[in-house]
Structures are given as C-alpha cells and as structure tokens.
C-alpha cells in the first residue's frame, strides 16, 4: 500500500511536476506574450496622459502645439510618443512604472539639456526647448484631435 501509495504519490508528483512545468512554461510564454502585447494593446492614450500629466498649463501647451501644427511640419508622420520617450530615456514599459515626480524631474533635466545643447525651437517668437515643444504638439493632438 505504501508502495502503491508512494507510487501514487510519486506518480501524482511526477504528473504534478509535468503539469507544473507545462503550466509554468505556458504561463511564462503567455505572460511574455501578454506583456509584449500589452504595449500594443493598452490604449496609447494612457501613455500620452502620463506624459502630459507633467504639464502645468495644458491650455498654453495646446496653443503652442497648434501653432506648430499649423505650420508645415513632419510631425504628423512621426511617432511623437516614441520621440518623447527616447528623449526621456524611457520605454513603453517603464513609463507605466515611473512616478509622476520622477517623470517631471526627467522632463526638467531634458528641457535644460535642450537649451544647453541649443535644441531650441521658435514658436510664436518664444524660444522653447525641443522636448517641451514636442509635448505641446502631443497635447494639441491629444486634446484637440
């Protein structure tokens, strides 16, 4: 009985291990796929909103963004979010985990870096950093369609 039991136990253990392994691998794979997919399937608006959350004055940002979009530009074709994330040294994954204050710090650093490196854009006569300008365009596109 003990043996049978043990066998049963052993058998059952063996099955459980297999199930466990198969399940784990499946879960891991599906999880990875899910993770990979999440960057595609989670609505972009959440990333945009996260980025735009650091703007203090959304209405001014929209005016500036509209002014840029009203002039010939190639920003329609460009993936703005990718551009901005690159400037912030962030990925789609990390944008979801970074806190708003950390994001604001990166933003300030990047804008100051823009001015230091002369990545400056003139909008309606105002001299703005490239990063903040892209955020303004993103605001205009997001909130004003």
């Amino acid at each position: 009985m003990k043996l049978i039991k043990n066998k049963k136990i052993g058998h059952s253990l063996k099955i459980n291990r297999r199930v466990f392994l198969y399940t784990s691998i499946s879960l891991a794979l599906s999880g990875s796929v899910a993770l990979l997919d999440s960057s595609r399937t989670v609505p972009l608006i959440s990333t945009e909103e996260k980025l735009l959350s650091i703007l203090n004055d959304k209405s001014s940002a929209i005016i500036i963004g509209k002014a840029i979009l009203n002039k010939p530009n190639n920003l329609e074709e460009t993936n703005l979010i990718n551009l901005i994330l690159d400037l912030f040294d962030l990925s789609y994954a990390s944008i979801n985990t970074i806190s708003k204050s950390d994001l604001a710090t990166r933003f300030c650093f990047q804008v100051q870096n823009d001015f230091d490196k002369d990545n400056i854009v003139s909008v309606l006569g105002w001299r703005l950093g490239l990063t903040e300008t892209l955020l303004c365009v993103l605001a205009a596109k997001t909130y004003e369609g």
Partner: protein
Amino acid sequence: MIIDSRKLNLEHPLETDLLIIGAGPAGITVAKQFANTSIRVTLLESGGESYDYAAQDLNRGITTGLPVEPLDASRLRLFGGTSNHWAGWCRPFEAEDFESREDWPESGWPISREDLNKYYNTATKLCQLPTNKFDDLNYWRSQPGGSKLNKLNLNKKRLLTSIFQISPPTRFGEAYHKELKQADNIRVILNATVLELLRSNNSSINTSTKTISGARVTTPDKLKFTVNARITVLAVGGVETSRLLLLSTNVHPDGAGNENDLVGRYFMDHPWLRSISYLRFQKPGTNWPLYFDKTKVADTKIFATLTPSPELKKHEHIGGFRLWLRPSRVSSAGLDSARTIINDLKQGQLSDDLTEHITNIFSDVDTLADVTYKSLFQTRQSPFLHTKKTNDPYLGAFIDLNIEQRPNPDSRLTLDTSIDIFEQQKIKLDWRLHDTDWHTAKTALNIAAQEFGRIGAGRVHVPLEGNTPDWPALITSSNHHMGGARMASSPNQGVVNSNCRVHSVANLYIAGSAVFPTSGYANPTLTIVALSLKLADHLLEALS
C-alpha cells in the same frame, strides 16, 4: 577764476598756454589736472553756469537716418556740459574692446586697456565712485546692504554678469567748480562760443602737419575775440567736435584734420531696444536683486547686466551688448496677443484665437499702454503701470538691449546748409547701422533665451527674426555720441593718434568720445574721463 565773456576786455587777443574748448566732463578733467601749475589754462564754455535757452539753441541740429533724440535735447550747453543730465552709469570698457578683430577691419584702438588702467582708477574717483572693483561680487556682498546679491549661474562661455556702478551722478560743473575757481592759473570763460580754429600765420595750409594759433570766439552779443594758445584741446562732445573741425576751413579747406575725409565719419551710439523681449518666469515671484534693482551698497548703487563673453563675440562675429532686466508684476499675455494680431494682419489674416487674444489685451491693457507710450514718445517713463501692488510677485521681466554698433563710415556727421544765430552751419547727423548689428541684436536675445532656459529661469520671447535687418520702430539711440574723429595709428584710418593729437595738426588735441574707434557696450563717460586724464598727463609733459 570764472568769468563771463561779456566782462572781458576784448581789445587784445587773450593769450594762454593751454586752451580747452568745452567745459563738460572731458574739458573739466583736463583743466583740473593743471590746477596750481605754472601753465596758464583757459577753459571756454559756450553756455553759462545754468541752463540758458539761447545757448541751448546752439545745440540744434538736423537728424536723418535712424531715430535719435533731438540734438538739443540729448546734449547740454552749460558749465559741466551734458554731465548735468547724466544718469551716472559707469563701467570701464573691456580689454577686448581695445583690440583689433580680424572680422571687423575697422576695429582696434592704438592703445590698450592696460594703458588706461591707472587712469580708470583715478576716473572712478572723479566720478565719485567708491571703488574700482566693479565685478568683485564678494566685495559688494561684504558691504552693508550687499548680502542679498547673488549672481545667476550662467555659462561663462556665453554670458557674463557685468556690474555697473551708478555715480551720484557727478555734475562736473558743480563738483569741480571750487577747484577751478580757486586755481590761479586757470581762467574759465563762460558764454564764450568758439566759431572756428585758426591756423598759425607761419603754418602753410598745404603742409602735412600744420599748427594752429588758437580759436575765434564770440560772446552772446556777437562780439568776436581771439584766444591764442600754444596747445588747443577740443572737448566739445561726440557731435560738436566734428562740427568745429569741419567749420575750421582756414586750417584745411575740408575742415581741420579732414585731409583724408574722415572727420564726421564712423559716428556711433549704443542702439537701444527698449522692452524688446520679455522673460516669463518659470516660477512666479522670482527675484534677482542684483539684476533688478539699483542696490545701494558701499555708498554707491550697483546694477548688473548680462554681456557677451569674448568667446561668444569671436565665435558669432558679433559686437558687444548688454541686456538688462526690468521686472514686471503684470503678465505679458496682452503684449503677445497684440503682437500676434499685428503679425497676422500684416499677412492679411485673422487669428483663429482672436477672441482669446482680445481678452488677453483687455486684461493687460496697462502693460500695453505702458509699452506703447514709451515707444511713441521715446521715453523711459510712462504714466501707466502703477496699478499693481508692490507686494504682488514678479511674473517676468522686460529685457532692454543696448548693442555695440560696428563702425560704419557712412554713419556720419556733416555740415547742414541751415545756420545758427552766429551764422555757423548747423550739424547734420545721419546715424546708420551695419548688417552685423542686426546679427548682434538677434544673437544677444537668442543667447539670453538659451541661458534663461538652461538655468530654468523661464522662457524668452524674441521678436527679431530673419537675416535681413528689420529694426523695430522702438529702436533709439542712448545719447552716447561717439566717433567722428576716431583714433588710429595712421592718418589714413583716423583723425587723431594714440595721444589724441590730430594727425595733421601738431598742437591740436581732442578729448572725449569723438575719438573712440569702437564703442564697446559700456556707457562712455568713465572712459571719456580716463582718456582725458591720459591726455592731461601727455600735455603736462608737452607743456613743461
């Protein structure tokens, strides 16, 4: 002795060793260096001891070219000269201001800043400043009232903090009246207007180096007299120097010192763009006392401006400039909206956000009225902008810009056909800029925008765009008249030599800003006084 020309015995020519024409800061500085020496000095002043309309009228002239203040408003003709309405801003020229630049062939003084250093030290005293430590912030901070002063953390390869000291201001006529009056060897003659310089009888008009005997002078009653002198110094300011040289056709048919058609050319001022830009603070309530206020410290007042580094000037091929900030408790939204609407209208359009812009204009009507008033009437004061309480936070700062203009031979003083009460031709000023000056102004504002953005101070509105000069209507002069008798080693390039002696006249010297070959960005008075001290040293040696 100080005497009125109408009380002189005019039967015989007056004799003197040193004749100084003009009792402004330059003339008085030269004269007082001779006090109580054995050298007889005569100092002639066209005006009296106080403001007189008839004398002041002699300053009228014709202006063409860029807008300048009327010549009878920007200069004063009385004892003490234009120092009587001087604002008192003092700062020496930078060392590089004296150097020759490859990209500006007209640049370069035949003397260096080092040659002037000791004279600058004395000049600070004559201008009643407590120290020559202009940019030593540790010194200012150690003085009572100075602890709150801090410099901005600017990139020193781009912008520098350059500190001005504000003189009381020194009214040279009042400050040195007693000293001149008490000096036995100095005779100050008031209401004595020089009509022309006189060539010596033994000097041919055709020789390359002539001598002059002195000057022909008139009283207000049109009684003429002559002053004979071993040496004559013209110290009549940046406009009148050219006029008197050009009027002196008996020294040379084209005017004294004008053998090479240089007299009157290369006239310079510091083009002033008032409230040209606006810095909107990132953090409302920003306060930079060193840059915002004329802070009273160590018995003087100091004030910081932003100026270019030598590297920036070289790299960008620009002249000097100074940016100064006037903090504002009102927003600039109305001003921006007005500019946007105007620009749209120029292009035959109407803004999509017209309603919003009009709302901004109504809410900022005080600011708009203030800027419009100052532009229209070319004034620093306006009756507006007094509605905000002084404890409201600063929201931004208007930026004023003065630039060093590149020397331009076509910017010039000539004689007009109209005449004054003494039948002397009036002066005509045609003030012009160079394309480089537009680049200087644009670069100055863009660099300021870059630095204010970099340090997280705020964002700057820059209204100058494009590569073709398109000066806004609010451009004006700073009443810093310079050039017209520029200093150069060669007579082909300048009117006077390194000792301020007219190249072609052995005993005629010029004191004052007329001899400046370049103008730097600093107000000229301190350098005028320093150069006059250097000239006085040279003349003491020559006359001894």
